[in-house]
C-alpha cells in the first residue's frame, strides 16, 4: 500500500489533542456538598450502572479517535496495487538523429537508462513503441531489463523523422488508463510543461553536422547528371569534399569541394558518363554518418510502345504530331503498350495493351463549353479547355466513366478491364474542332502516355527518400517477387493486381526480383530536420510521482476509509443520543 499524500499523516496530531481535550473536559472537579442524598439519581460519571454506562465515555472517545484516524487515512489517499501494476509504455524515438555521436549516441545512452529503469521495476510490464513517421508497436509486452533487451535490439533508429506526440497518444490508447508513458528521445518537448502520466527523457547533445539533404539524378543519352545538396548544420563554417562514387563501374569518383557558412546549403552538380549504374554521393565522417551518403540510380523512363491504327487521316496526323511532341512514345505495331484506333480494336492484343478508341462522328455538334473534367483522373492533369471547340455527336452516349464532358455529353470516358488494362473512349470530329490545334492536345496525349507508363514494369521512381513507399508495377503473370533490402535480407512478397508497395526503411539499394526481371530503387536519408542536431539536448520533463502518475495501476482505498469513518460517526451519534437519553429520561 502506498500513500499518495503522506503529509496528511500530520492530521494524526489531532489524536493526542482530542484525547487531551477529552480528558481535561471529562476530569472531575471536587466539590463539597452538604449531603449526597439529593444527588442520588444524578448520572454517574464513571462508576456503577450497566455495562454500556460503564464504558460510555471511553467508548465515545475511542469512536472519535477512530474517526479521526480514518479521516486522516482517507486524506493520505491510500492505494493498493490492483493485481498487476499498470504497464509502462516506452515510446522510442526512431529517427536517425538518435545515432549521432557514435558510442555516446542518444540511442546508446537511452538504452542504458532504460536498462537501469527496468532493473528497478522488474515486475512492471513494459511495451515499446517506435516513433518514426508512423508510430509502430515494437514486439510484445515484456518484463524486466532482460526481457526488454531483445526487443530493444530491434530499435535501430533509421527513420527519417519522428512523430512522438502521435506515438504517445497511441501508447496511451494501447496501454490503457493506468499506463505510464515514457518518451525517450534526443530533444526536448515542444511544450516543456509535461504533466500527467507522461515522462519525457531526452539524451541528445547539440553537435555540428554536415549532411546531404537532397540528391537527384537525371538520365540522358548524352550522360547522367547528379545533383547533391549539402547543408552545414553548425555554428561555424565548414569545408568538405563531396565525392560521387560509381558503385557498378570502374570509373573514378567525381569530387567537389564545398565551403559552407553556418546554416548554409549548397547544391553541387556532377556529370557522370552514360550507362553508369548505382552511384553514391559521400561526405566525410562527422557526428552523424548516417546522412553522409546518398545512393542514386539512373532514372530510366522507358518509351511507351504505341500502335496507331487510325483511318481518319487528319486525325492520324494530329496524333502523330502530338505523340512526337511528348517524346515518350515509340510508334510500333509489335507488342504495343497502347493502341490508338478510330475503329474496332484489333482482336489479338497483348494482355497489357491499353486502348484509346476514337469515334469520329459524322454528325457532330460543336461545343465551346462548359467542359466538365474529372480532376482526380491523371488524364486531366494540366488541361484547360478555355477557347476550345470540341465537335461531337450527342448520341450514342459513350460507355464508361466520364473523364471529360461537355454538359451531359461525355467526350472522354474510361473503362477498367481486368489485369490493370484500361480502355479509353473519345469522340471527336476534327474538322469542326480546334482541339488538335490547341496545346491541350499534346497535354492530353502526354497524360495518356504517362498514365500508361506508370503501369510499365518497374518502380515508379528509381531514387526515393528514406521512409518513402515505392510502388512497383510487375508483369501480369508475376504472382510473387523477392525483395532484397540494403541490409541483405530478402523477403518473398505477393503481388496484387500487378502492383507491389515497398517501403524504404533503410538507406541503400533495394532489388525486387521476379522471374526474368530485376527492378531496383535506391533510398537515401535526405531529412534536413533530422540532420540538424543543434537543437538536441539532454533533460527530463514530467515526473511520475506526481498525483496523476503515481495513481496509475493502484486501486484507491480512500473511499473505504471514508465509509468506515461515516459508520463510526453514525455509531457515535447513536451512542451519544442513547447516553443523553439515559441522562435525561
Amino acid at each position: 500500500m502506498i500513500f499518495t499524500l503522506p503529509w496528511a499523516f500530520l492530521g494524526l496530531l489531532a489524536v493526542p489533542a482530542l484525547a487531551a481535550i477529552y480528558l481535561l473536559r471529562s476530569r472531575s472537579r471536587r466539590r463539597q456538598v452538604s449531603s449526597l442524598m439529593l444527588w442520588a439519581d444524578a448520572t454517574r460519571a464513571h462508576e456503577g450502572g450497566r455495562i454500556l454506562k460503564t464504558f460510555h465515555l471511553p467508548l465515545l472517545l475511542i469512536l472519535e479517535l477512530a474517526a479521526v484516524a480514518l479521516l486522516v487515512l482517507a486524506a493520505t489517499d491510500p492505494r493498493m496495487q490492483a493485481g498487476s501494476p499498470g504497464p509502462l509504455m516506452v515510446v522510442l524515438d526512431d529517427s536517425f538523429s538518435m545515432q549521432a555521436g557514435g558510442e555516446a549516441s542518444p540511442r546508446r545512452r537511452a538504452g542504458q537508462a532504460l536498462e537501469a529503469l527496468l532493473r528497478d521495476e522488474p515486475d512492471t510490464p513494459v511495451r515499446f513503441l517506435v516513433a518514426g513517421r508512423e508510430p509502430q508497436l515494437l514486439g510484445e509486452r515484456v518484463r524486466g531489463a532482460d526481457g526488454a533487451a531483445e526487443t530493444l535490439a530491434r530499435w535501430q533508429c533509421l527513420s527519417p523523422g519522428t512523430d512522438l506526440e502521435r506515438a504517445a497518444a497511441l501508447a496511451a490508447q494501447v496501454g490503457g488508463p493506468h499506463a505510464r508513458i515514457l518518451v525517450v528521445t534526443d530533444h526536448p518537448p515542444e511544450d516543456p510543461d509535461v504533466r500527467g502520466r507522461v515522462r519525457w527523457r531526452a539524451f541528445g547533445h547539440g553537435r555540428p553536422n554536415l549532411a546531404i539533404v537532397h540528391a537527384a539524378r537525371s538520365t540522358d543519352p548524352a550522360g547522367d547528371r547528379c545533383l547533391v545538396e549539402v547543408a552545414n548544420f553548425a555554428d561555424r563554417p565548414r569545408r568538405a569534399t563531396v565525392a560521387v562514387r560509381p558503385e557498378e563501374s570502374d570509373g573514378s569518383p567525381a569530387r567537389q569541394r564545398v565551403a559552407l557558412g553556418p546554416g548554409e546549403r549548397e547544391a553541387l552538380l556532377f556529370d557522370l558518363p552514360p550507362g553508369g549504374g548505382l552511384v553514391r554521393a559521400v561526405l566525410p565522417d562527422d557526428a552523424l554518418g548516417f546522412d553522409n551518403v546518398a545512393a542514386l540510380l539512373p532514372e530510366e523512363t522507358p518509351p511507351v510502345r504505341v500502335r496507331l491504327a487510325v483511318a481518319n487521316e487528319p486525325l492520324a496526323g494530329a496524333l502523330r504530331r502530338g505523340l512526337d511532341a511528348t517524346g515518350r512514345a515509340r510508334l510500333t505495331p509489335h507488342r504495343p503498350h497502347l493502341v490508338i484506333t478510330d475503329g474496332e480494336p484489333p482482336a489479338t492484343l497483348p494482355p497489357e495493351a491499353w486502348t484509346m478508341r476514337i469515334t469520329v462522328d459524322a454528325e457532330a455538334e460543336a461545343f465551346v463549353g462548359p467542359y466538365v473534367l474529372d480532376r482526380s483522373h491523371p488524364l486531366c492533369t494540366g488541361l484547360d479547355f478555355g477557347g476550345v471547340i470540341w465537335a461531337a455527336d450527342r448520341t450514342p452516349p459513350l460507355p464508361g466513366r466520364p473523364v471529360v464532358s461537355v454538359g451531359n455529353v461525355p467526350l472522354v470516358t474510361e473503362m477498367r478491364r481486368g489485369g490493370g488494362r484500361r480502355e479509353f473512349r473519345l469522340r471527336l470530329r476534327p474538322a469542326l474542332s480546334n482541339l488538335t490545334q490547341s496545346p491541350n492536345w499534346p497535354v492530353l496525349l502526354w497524360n495518356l502516355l504517362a498514365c500508361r507508363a506508370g503501369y510499365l514494369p518497374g518502380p515508379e521512381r528509381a531514387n526515393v527518400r528514406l521512409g518513402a513507399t515505392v510502388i512497383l508495377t510487375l508483369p501480369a503473370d508475376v504472382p510473387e517477387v523477392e525483395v532484397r533490402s540494403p541490409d541483405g535480407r530478402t523477403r518473398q512478397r505477393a503481388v496484387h493486381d500487378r502492383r507491389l508497395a515497398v517501403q524504404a526503411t533503410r538507406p541503400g539499394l533495394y532489388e525486387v526480383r521476379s522471374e526474368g526481371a530485376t527492378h531496383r530503387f535506391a533510398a537515401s536519408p535526405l531529412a534536413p530536420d533530422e540532420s540538424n542536431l543543434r537543437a538536441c539536448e539532454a533533460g527530463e520533463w514530467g515526473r511520475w510521482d506526481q498525483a496523476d502518475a503515481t495513481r496509475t495501476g493502484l486501486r484507491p482505498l480512500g473511499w473505504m476509509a471514508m465509509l468506515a469513518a461515516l459508520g463510526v460517526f453514525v455509531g457515535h451519534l447513536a451512542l451519544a443520543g442513547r447516553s443523553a437519553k439515559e441522562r435525561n429520561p
Partner: protein
Amino acid sequence: MDRPSRDYLLAGKRAGARYALLAPKRAPLGPTGTHLANRPGSSLEFMDHRAYHAGDDLRHIDWSAYARTDRLSIKLYRQEINPHVDLLLDGSRSMDLTGTAKAEAALGLAALLATAAEGAGFAHRAWIGTERWQPVPNGTADPAAWGPIALEAVRNPDEAVLGSPPRLAPRGMRFLLSDLLWLGDPSAVLARLADGACRLVVLQVLARADADPPPSGNTRLVDCESGQEREVFADAAALERYRHRLGRHQQHWHRAARQVGATLATVVAENLIAGGWDVQDLVAEGILEVSHR
C-alpha cells in the same frame, strides 16, 4: 469561640436589635406571666365578652351586662404569659459548608432571634445539636457572651432529638435552625420538638450551593459530614432533577410542620447576608415584628 463565629453572632445581634419576637397566638396555659397572650386568661386585662356556657366560672359573669341585656355573658381577660425561647442550632458539619456563608447565616440568625427575644422580654436559651443536644455555654445570656459553638458534628440532628432530646422549657417558643438535609421522617422530629411548645419555628438555612447548585460537568461530590464521594455529571438536566428533589424534600418538611402546627421558613444564607439581614419573611410569618424601641 473563634473570631469569625463571634463576628457572626455580633452581626446577628446587631440585626436582631431591629426586631422583637412576637408572642404566639396559641400561648401555653399558665396563671402567671409577664406578657399578655392573645387568648383569654386570668390577667386583669379585659379582652372581650362572650355568651355564658354551662361550666364557666361564675365569677366572670358580667352582671352589669346581664342587667342591661337580660343575657348572661362572660367577661374574658387576656392571658398573662411569661414565654421562653429555645434556640436549637444544628451543629452538624453541613451547617459550616466550605465556601458558603451557611455558618455565618445560622449563627447570625440564632443571635438575631435571641436578641429579638430579649428585646421582647423573652428568656432564651441556645442549644447546639451535636452527638446530643446540649446547651450552648452561657447560652441564656447575650449572644455576644455565648460560649464556643462548633459546627462539626457528623450526626444528624434528628438522631439527637429522638435519641436524647434536650430539656426544653415547657410552653415556650422553640426555634430549630438547620439545613434539614438528612433523610428521615420529619414528622417524628417535629412532633417531639413541638411537644409542650407554644410555638415551633423551623428555619431552614441553606447555602446558595444547596438551593441552586451551579452546573459543573463532571464533578466529584464529597459529603462534608460522612466524607462519602460520588462522581456525577452535573449538567442542566441533573441540576433540574436536584432542584426537583430538593423541592419535594422541602414539601415533605412543610407537610410535617403543618401537622404539628409548626412554622417552616427557608433562608438562603448568601441572600440573607447580602440583604443586610432583612428577615421580612419572618415578619410576614408573624414570628418577628419590627421593633420600635
